[in-house]
């Protein structure tokens, strides 16, 4: 049930809901979202001006279109919905996310995909610092974070699982990612970089792409094209695969 005082911001037409967020505090916006989903499977939120935590903890299958700029922690702890951002996103997209999708038609800030355990996050352009930090996987849960542009320092830090792909579409001809310390402390998962890294953390190694890597990267590129419609040729052979040197980077650090 949408609380009565918030009814004015919502218009429901069949299975779709339209929310005008221009005067909504994030708490109220999320309250509305939590009360939708049945039967409103498609939700359009207009005039989003930095409201935080949109989609937090939602666990139903639904499609949320955000028009404007969502605030920090978009889709935190989320487990199910697909969120399409028609604009840029801020920090913490997909923080500790368990499942679902976030597709950002623009760029995003720092710590995108922090501790993400499942689902997919696609960012069309660049991202900030520490993206993909401590992503992990468990059984059938294997998160995918795809960045169309490039990233800042500490990309994939402490990464423990999942797939992180950076397509370098905003880079120059040299295709060198300027981020420093990529994969510092990484002990699981895979990073695919189109082009080359300028600086790797000491716990990662660049290894040759195998057949299944080419397939995986191709399918990521295909999804990216589907979401954002990019024309450019992206041969999978232009990718570098980064994996942890060891599953136990700190194995010899301690004595009993």
């Amino acid at each position: 049930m949408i609380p009565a005082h918030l009814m004015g911001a919502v218009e429901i037409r069949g299975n779709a809901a339209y929310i005008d967020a221009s005067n909504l505090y994030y708490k109220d916006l999320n309250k509305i979202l939590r009360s939708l989903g049945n039967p409103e499977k498609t939700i359009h939120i207009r005039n989003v001006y930095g409201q935080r935590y949109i989609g937090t903890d939602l666990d139903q299958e639904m499609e949320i279109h955000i028009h404007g700029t969502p605030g920090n922690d978009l889709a935190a702890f989320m487990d199910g919905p697909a969120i399409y951002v028609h604009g840029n996103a801020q920090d913490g997209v997909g923080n500790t996310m368990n499942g679902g999708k976030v597709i950002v038609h623009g760029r995003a800030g720092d710590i995108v995909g922090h501790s993400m355990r499942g689902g997919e996050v696609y960012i069309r352009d660049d991202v900030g610092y520490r993206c993909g930090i401590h992503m992990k996987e468990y059984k059938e849960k294997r998160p995918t974070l795809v960045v169309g542009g490039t990233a800042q320092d500490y990309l994939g830090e402490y990464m423990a699982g999942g797939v992180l792909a950076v397509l370098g579409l905003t880079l120059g001809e040299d295709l060198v990612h300027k981020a420093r310390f990529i994969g510092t402390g990484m002990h699981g998962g895979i990073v695919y970089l189109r082009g080359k890294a300028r600086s790797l953390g000491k716990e990662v190694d660049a290894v040759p792409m195998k057949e299944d890597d080419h397939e995986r990267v191709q399918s990521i590129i295909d999804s990216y094209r589907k979401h954002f419609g990019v024309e450019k040729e992206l041969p999978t052979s232009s990718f570098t695969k980064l994996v942890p040197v060891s599953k136990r980077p700190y194995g010899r650090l301690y004595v009993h």
Partner: protein
Amino acid sequence: MKTYLEPEFIVERNDDRCIRCKVCVNQCTYETHYYDEEDDQVLSRDENCVNCHRCVVFCPTHAITIKPNPTRYTENWNWSDEAIFTLKKQAESGAIVITGMGCDKPYLTYWDRILIDASQVTNPSIDPLREPMEIQTFLGAKPDRLEMEYNNGDIVLQTELAPQLTCETPIMFTALSYGAISFNVHTALARAATEFGTYMNTGEGGLDEQLYKYGDHIIVQVASGRFGVHAKYLDAGAAVEIKIGQGAKPGIGGHLPGEKVTEDISRTRMIPVGTDALSPAPQHDIYSIEDLRQLIYALKEATDYTKPVSVKIAAVHNSAAIASGMVRAGADIIALDGVRGATGAAPKVIRDNVGIPIELALASVDKRLRDEGIRNHASVVAAGGIKSSADVVKAIALGADAVYIGTAALVALGCTVCQGCHTGKCPWGIATTDPWISRRVNPDIATQRLVNLLRGWSLEIKEMMGGMGINAIESLRGNRDRLRGVGLTDTELRILGIKMAGD
């Protein structure tokens, strides 16, 4: 490399008493005892002994005595045996020395320099055996003022109250992660908390789904590794705690080695079997008070504002200023963990040298929050070194709303504070994930022992309160006038906010 380390303990076996039953051989998980068939004798490898007393307690004829190795290095106040031992260990490994439990160095335990008042002649004492004595404690943000309306003689509360935890005694079980301790111990803590009406804290290793049914008495923790953190887990608990720091290892992260990540541990932590579970030192979405606020409210959003959010920090030099920020960031409960707070594994150098005593941190935090007029916005929970009901009473009089106990609860289950938690071989079946050793803790008996501990301490708290002429714990909270210090300097008394005995 030949080791230059000598055995720390010597196992003495009275051969007249030994009946060759081999209980010691089977009980010792460090393989200290062995049976020599040819000579029909039970013998010991002293160098393996950690002085856990498992064999001593289980030997049916009391044949075993463990002694500190009487062979000492030449007496030297500066170069203690421990300093030499630790240094040699490092020379042989080139690694960080890891240990378990809390700081064992003789920094002043202020609890033991504080005495409690009692009523004599005036303001008569109360006998808790015959008169009601209220120790129920509510944890969570309290409003600045209450608005009420009278309706046909009834008082109707108009102010919307923040969510609260209701403790039947001001004692909770501190964060002990599944992985650091066994499933049976996690179960016993959850059951005892439920039976007595208090709370256990999951620690950062998640919560097995079998224990969700005790969720009304469980605080679920969210730490930097975010292990096992998902919507169902957050919903399962009665409160959520953000772990920033731990008294045993302020400022550093945690590290559950891959060997301990068994199938069951893997399921609750939600990481593959055998991989290291690394908790980074900071929470990487928290670099400021504003960021802390962001995570607090993310968790409040995720739990629809129905549960209090606690933030736990290690007691450090500027705890009071940080605590002020934490309250302003929206924390409903502040947990402070002092330098003597224990751990399942921490670098010894950190455990023994970083942090400050809980008594001083608690007193300064409580004062700061009162001075700023925001003390009611959050409850304060003191942890790290509470070892008796007297410590609980002193903590509450210094300003705590409740305390967390960890080591004390484990001692109730058999722990002898041998400091070997990090080995994963705990012969008492407590600090281990080995399914065979874990069976040594029977959850029914363990629950009973924990409930007995809570009952015993609660009765003692009521006795002490009665002696002071106080019949509700609310009247003891922050009542520093009922405490006196002995053998403390003026500065210590000033920070503790108490007077010298006799004054």
